[in-house]
């Protein structure tokens, strides 16, 4: 039986890709906290994750070697704009406190996903060694 990393790692691999994308978006928000006219953006992680899972569930199988390989990699999630509590006069909608807490939260969840993946890999290593 071939070992499939896709089925072994489960949802965590895709979650990690989405988390790292969200790190990038939130870092952009914090970087542009003083840019006039910049609109803060974010990813709705829940719906993005549901989207990714639906895509992988409906993935096309290659039943013939002549079939074209379809890239099932995580597509980038839909970017949404944040609704500001109080936007500034220059049209910037970044709230530094909101972005910072979202960034910290996202970083923690990224580390949680890493821990899950670490457990999966350790399990595989234990199975391979058979000790």
């Amino acid at each position: 039986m071939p070992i499939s990393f896709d089925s072994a790692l489960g949802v965590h691999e895709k979650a990690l890709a989405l988390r790292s994308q969200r790190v990038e978006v939130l870092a952009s928000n914090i970087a542009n906290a003083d840019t006039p006219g910049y609109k803060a953006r974010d990813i709705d992680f829940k719906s993005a994750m549901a989207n990714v899972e639906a895509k992988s569930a409906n993935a096309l199988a290659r039943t013939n070697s002549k079939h074209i390989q379809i890239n099932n990699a995580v597509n980038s999630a839909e970017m949404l704009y944040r609704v500001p509590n109080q936007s500034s006069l220059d049209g910037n909608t970044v709230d530094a406190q909101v972005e910072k807490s979202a960034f910290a939260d996202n970083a923690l969840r990224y580390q949680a996903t890493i821990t899950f993946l670490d457990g999966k890999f350790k399990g595989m290593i234990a199975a391979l060694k058979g000790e």
Partner: protein
Amino acid sequence: MALFNVFDIAGSSMSAQSVRLNTVASNLANADVVSTKEADVYRSRQPVFAAVMDTLNSGGQEQASIPVRVAAIVENKAAARQEFQPEHPMANKQGYIFRSNVNAIEEMANMMAASRSYQNNVEVFNTSKQLLLKTLTLGR
């Protein structure tokens, strides 16, 4: 790997904020410069930040990483302070000197805001570095 882009983003913002700190330093240093003509007087300089929108290189997808750049450094158009000081060596024929339009209080507030923003970006940088290092130890 999206996390590597964070270094570019945070770095671009740190450099933009340090330009802002530089202009604050110039403004405060030249706050008391006196001039004979109004045209020659030092005017307060302010950087203009702009987001780097690069949709052409993001392959039609919406861009996740948006660094920041300094689009321009503009001079404050406010009128220079005119003072009547006939005994001043720089005074013109009418006995007036012109002082720069730097507002020291405004500049100090600007400096604090810039340094806070800089610190925020350093924090983002460090957190991303930790996440990447943790990713490297996966399965160890």
